[in-house]
């Protein structure tokens, strides 16, 4: 059987998802021999511009150049997989995009200077510009989820990812619900897949796997209001890893207040 051609691409972000792939130490040789890694800038210098069967893309689109690069990757890729919170939802940097304050904040740092090597734009998840076939969440992605997804893709199967929130994995690990201890845990709003690592370390979920498909934000928001948290800090907390997806929720809150 012909080996599949894989490209791993990094847009703007912390490079953690690409690094996590390198962190799969004991499987790395298997990964590199099971597929032809055509492009992986962090790991190799002989990178090709040719077609790939599967493109794994991390990071947000934060410059015009990245937008062009992304469109070019889509054209030469069979499947496109968004990997990590940045590519899937916009990551931490998209909070400024979501708030509509990007230009203001950009000027705060850079004044009127216009960079010439790149043309910055507000950070966006990649599906703003291209069709994404599958999403692999996490900040950064989890090793186990990456490996199971990657191997399924290599075998021609679609990924099988959890669609429920962190609470399921949290209960599997027999942790007491932190919401019941009056701690603002974002577990119910956040995709599972991390193994409920923070609640298992006695810490509230910060939401870094991105919003769960059916996240009931208004219920948790009001539940926490009832527990005495202030709306401003709750909105801020919920926005950190929700990228651009939080906009609708904030709009709905505004509507309610009217």
């Amino acid at each position, binding site marked *: 059987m012909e080996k599949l051609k894989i490209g791993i691409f990094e847009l703007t972000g912390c490079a953690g998802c690409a690094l996590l792939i390198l962190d799969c130490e004991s499987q790395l040789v298997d990964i590199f021999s099971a597929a032809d890694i055509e492009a992986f800038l962090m790991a190799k210098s002989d990178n090709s511009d040719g077609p790939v069967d599967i493109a794994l893309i991390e990071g947000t689109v934060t410059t015009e150049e990245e937008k062009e690069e992304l469109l070019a990757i889509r054209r030469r890729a069979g499947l496109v997989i968004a990997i990590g919170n940045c590519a899937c939802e916009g990551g931490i940097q998209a909070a400024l995009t979501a708030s509509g304050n990007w230009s203001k904040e950009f000027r705060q740092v850079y004044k009127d200077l216009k960079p010439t090597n790149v043309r910055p734009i507000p950070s966006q998840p990649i599906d703003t510009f291209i069709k994404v076939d599958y999403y692999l969440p996490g900040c950064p992605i989890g090793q186990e989820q990456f490996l199971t997804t990657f191997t399924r893709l290599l075998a021609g199967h679609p990924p099988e990812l959890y669609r429920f929130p962190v609470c399921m994995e949290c209960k599997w*690990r027999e942790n007491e619900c932190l919401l019941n201890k009056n701690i603002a845990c974002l577990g119910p709003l956040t995709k599972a897949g991390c193994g409920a690592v923070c609640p298992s370390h006695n810490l509230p979920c910060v939401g870094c796997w991105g919003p769960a498909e*059916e996240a009931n934000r208004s*219920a948790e928001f009001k*539940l926490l209001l009832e527990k005495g948290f202030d709306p401003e800090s709750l909105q801020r907390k919920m926005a950190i890893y929700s990228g651009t997806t939080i906009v609708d929720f904030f709009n709905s809150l505004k509507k309610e207040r009217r």
Partner: protein
Amino acid sequence: MRILKLKKLNLFSFLQSLSNGIELWAPVKKDSQTVFQFILPEEINKINLNFTRTLLPPKKLFIPPSFNMFQVTAKGYKEDYSWIKDRILFGLHPCDIHGLLTLDRIFTQNFPDSYYVQARQKTLILGLSCWPDEYCLCQSTHTDIIEEGFDLFFSELGDDYLVWIGSSRGDDLIRIKPEFFEESLGTKDIEKYIEWREKRAQAFKTKINFVFMPDLMELKYNDSVWERAGTACLACGSCSMVCPTCNCYNVRDEILLGDKPGRRVREWDSCTLLEYSLVAGGENFRSKKSSRLKLWYTHKLQAFGSKYGKPSCVGCGRCLVTCPVGINVKSISDSLEGKKVDAFWARFSIEVKP
């Protein structure tokens, strides 16, 4: 059924003597909660006897939250029973033993589940008496007393335990340390026990109209309760995870790289989750949280009863202490009865101004 007497101060020594060469699992404190945990003989003092309910029910020992069903290679597959060990499980309260008996109906009768069956056969059940708190509903569900389903059962009575021997395997355990057990119970012991049972029966504060539920589910199938609870439901699945009789599972295939075998992983699932009723072709016939909640409750309180003779709620109260928004057997059944319910889900629709 034989009843013996054991001095309280000999309980740990007895359990310690049992734990030689066999895994002893017992209730242990985890922060403010109690969980069933594997205990080494030298850790016997970690056992916590003063608890009302563990965070997860004992089902976790028979169908773990996530386990490997089999390895698969190009040549075929091989079941993985390696996680199933000889075990003694100590500290089950009557409701939890009832929970296991309910699971037995599902997993051992028409279509035996080989993993569950093996784990069940290899595990001895040592029950323990309890005292209800404000969340215990087992009197209403008629699961506050247990007469079967254990190998030994320890009823606390002053400085002693009355020990029921429920099986020949239980009897074998007694023979390991016969010197700890007194054969004959005095009149005083019997009087004390009767008194204890009466007092305990009086101690239940929380009640539901369990017998009425099947009818009420039918009559109020279109009640607004479901919609209202659905709006507040976080769809987090916790109610199912902590329920001693919820048993749904999902399987995932993990294909591994290189020459390593693949695995089929079996994980706890819940009908309250979005993906549960999703079928091939993308149709989801319970895409609304309200219809999923309705399924959970009608299944538990009505449909299970018509199939297996009794409803599958054992009144352990875990959904009462777990659901962050207060959707539980008590609040739902009260609400269906037309009572005013003080739970977040009921307040939620009233509006909390941000």
